[in-house]
């Protein structure tokens, strides 16, 4: 039986001692999840290891942690995958999630951060008047669409490493934004405009996201929070002409244009394109202020390796850029707007052929995500 070493960050506020790491060796098959190994260490070695967990099936959202520095659910990360990302190839580092205060060991205070943010989006349906006698009649697609965000298990994994939240702790954040889309996208809700005005005007609202892709990459449930944020922005500016003080709409347009041209996100071009040529040249005063505000973000990108110098200098088009451009043609060629929706992922090409063209959108949305993940 293979042996794994768990290096767990321990902290107990009662002891008055600072946090420290403690290792536990566990013998277990590699296809078992990290959570099972932690539970085995807890059962056999030290019952005081603190971790929330319940379902062991990635559905209750309890067990968000950082594994080798990456936020994930402990119950759906297999030991063999975890060890593959270990710095020394052997020891699996397990730490509490970020952006939230630690209560004990791997347990963080989600109320203080995540749930407080969820409260900000009026997290319930606001129907217009009395309900109908039977069900609301709404399109199948609309329900499939909002079900993507309904699938959020509030695990906080996206919150843990959200770049904007690190910079602005007040930022509404990926999960709460996804929750907001769950109502904005729901045809039964009557408060769409109010919701969008609120989200757009909030200085720490939807325009505070830096498009770092982290939340899309780490979400265990395919909620793709950043995509929901982009859709909220599109609705706010496109459908309701809500003035965007933070220049996000241009940022988004720049983003879409870059993907069309390059197939992947060309981060070095994103800022100038968003804020006007020659950087400060034609930008509005508001935008200038924002550009300056964004600079640390770009620098942080550099520091974290997300925007690398080689990347800045040589940005290659992806090989199958034609496909990406085809998608754009298809999407833009349609009379009605198609929202980019990742909900139904994993279908292969032949299934798409069989079922018609409407599901081409996932490819458009996943291509940049993969780049972002690199």
């Amino acid at each position: 039986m293979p042996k794994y070493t768990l290096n767990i960050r321990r902290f107990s506020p009662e002891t008055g001692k600072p946090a420290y790491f403690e290792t536990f060796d566990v013998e277990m098959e590699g296809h078992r999840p990290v959570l099972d190994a932690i539970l085995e260490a807890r059962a056999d070695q030290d019952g005081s290891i603190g971790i929330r967990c319940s379902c062991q099936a990635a559905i209750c959202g309890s067990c968000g942690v950082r594994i080798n520095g990456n936020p994930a659910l402990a119950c759906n990360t297999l030991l063999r995958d975890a060890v593959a990302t270990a710095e020394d190839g052997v020891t699996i580092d397990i730490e509490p999630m970020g952006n939230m205060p630690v209560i004990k060991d791997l347990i963080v205070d989600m109320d203080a951060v995540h749930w407080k943010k969820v409260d900000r989006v009026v997290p319930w349906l606001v129907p217009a008047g009395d309900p109908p006698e039977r069900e609301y009649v709404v399109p199948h697609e609309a329900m499939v669409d909002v079900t993507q965000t309904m699938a959020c298990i509030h695990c906080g994994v996206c919150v843990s490493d959200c770049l904007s939240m690190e910079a602005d702790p007040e930022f509404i954040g990926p999960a709460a934004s996804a929750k907001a889309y769950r109502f904005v996208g729901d045809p039964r809700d009557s408060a769409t405009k109010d919701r969008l005005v609120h989200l757009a005007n909030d200085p720490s609202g939807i325009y505070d996201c830096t498009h770092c892709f982290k939340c899309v990459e780490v979400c265990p449930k395919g909620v793709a929070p950043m995509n929901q944020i982009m859709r909220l922005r599109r609705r706010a500016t496109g459908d309701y002409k809500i003035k965007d003080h933070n220049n996000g709409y241009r940022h988004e347009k720049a983003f879409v244009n870059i993907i069309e041209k390059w197939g992947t996100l060309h981060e070095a071009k994103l800022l100038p394109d968003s804020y006007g040529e020659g950087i400060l040249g034609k930008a509005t005063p508001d935008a200038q202020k924002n550009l300056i505000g964004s600079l640390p973000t770009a620098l942080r990108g550099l520091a974290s390796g997300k925007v690398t110098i080689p990347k800045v200098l040589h940005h290659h088009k992806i090989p199958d850029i034609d496909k990406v451009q085809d998608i754009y043609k298809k999407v833009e060629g349609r009379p009605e707007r198609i929202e980019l929706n990742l909900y139904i992922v994993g279908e292969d090409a032949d299934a798409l052929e069989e079922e018609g063209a409407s599901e081409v959108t996932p490819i458009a949305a996943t291509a940049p995500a993969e780049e972002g993940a690199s």
Partner: protein
Amino acid sequence: MTVGIISKIHPVRSHSNAAQGGINAALNPDDSWESHAFDTVKGSDYLGDQNAIEIMCREAPDEILHLEHLGVTFHRNDQGLLGTRAFGGASAARTYYVADITGQAILHVLYEQMLKYSDQIDRYEEWFTVDITTDDDGRCSGAIMRNIRDGSLEVFKAKTVILATGGSGQIYKPTTNALVCTADGQAMAYRAGASLMDMEMIQYHPTTLLGNGLLITEGARGEGAHLYNALGERFMEKDAPNKMELASRDVVSRAEQTEINEGRGFPDGSVHLDVTVVPKKRIHEALREIVMVGRDFAGIDITKEPIPVKPGQHYIMGGVKTDVDGQTDIPGLYAAGEVACVSVHGGNRLGANSLLDTLIFGKRSGVHAAGVAKQRNMPDVPATRLDQVRDEIDERINRAPGTGRRVSEVKAELGAIMDAKVAVYRDEAGLQEALEVVRRLKEEAKTATIDDKGTVFNQDVLGSIELGYMTDIAETIVLGAIERKESRGAQFRTDYPERNDEEWLKHIDIKLVDGEPKIEYSPVTITQWQPQARTY
């Protein structure tokens, strides 16, 4: 009047999340509540109380509409109306669903509503109920809770208390139930003097993932997936030629276990569930969760490969005995959901009837309990009670390591013996052996030790309390199974292989009298459906 909701985990983490498949209701114009009720009665192997079943099935359509109006994103058909899928044991496709996250969607929407009304509802999230208190007249007077965050203990005086603590699956290993499903409510009610009913009726679900026991939703078979043995035979042809894979769960689980026991299973002790026959688009749209389960927990692509499955512990039909308003034997104490036994499920629960049970009888309990609370003065709970509970918890924390077995060890042994002897097939010798082991474990639990001496998030001590709950309830399960000398629903006795309506068309109740479990019988309520032979 104020309402407090107490939950040992954040409410959206509750196990109702796990309900993938859906929720039943005869809402289609061409369906009828009578048909739903008959299917439920038949599914229960005639042990369900028909008055309660009638209420549940009659009220089901309005409940679905209510949930829809609150915001549950139920699947729609092409006309934008609520759409259904087929489920086991049902004569019509009447299961309403949200992809395969039905329970999660309902739970989250109900939580949204709780946030909406937060000025009227106090939430105590991550508080652990340790004890149900009763006054000198034997009425329920409240409960004692431990704040998990700081270890403090408090009395919650209450005019009425509703238990909605869910299932008890952790008594078994493996199980599809979450780690929090530890029989808390059943044990607390039992200790306070309430009767438990139908405890022997433990459902084994036909399709749990080999190895870790994760559930593969019945929705998969509802969407058309097949079961095969190692010879490539669709063996349900033998046992349920009409309903095939969609026969009642007890029937399918027994068929699988027979294949495995008689050597026609795969060498790893499984049979195969083949989802590849379902169109791909449909799999991705309706069975998304199990695509992920296959990928993340078994390393297989269920759209291309069959899934190794076997029967696994899933649900407890029995529970705290209640009437149709959720009232237990103890005035002022109510129970609803999996913790309770109304009984609508009798010997075997139909898929997608459990969420319905929780919602219908949860609501009825709430309405009744609120009515009673309005007429009552606030009871008192003597401070000595709190001290007693505090001492008891301190004693657990302070037991010196090495003086007893580890809590985790006792729990593991409990799970193994229950799964070995009190499972799909049972007999007298095996059950007696289980009783002996469980009684020993019950004693060992009283001295079992833990490591955590802290107050903040001491999950270790909660585990110790939960172990006590589970050993108490395991004993009642085994006693019920020994008592019922026939085969009905989930109880299959190889030594009494037939159903025996003459002697056993009755409920087995168990209550604690002077510290000892006492068995009583109560009649099954029959309104319009006389027992018949059960074939699918």
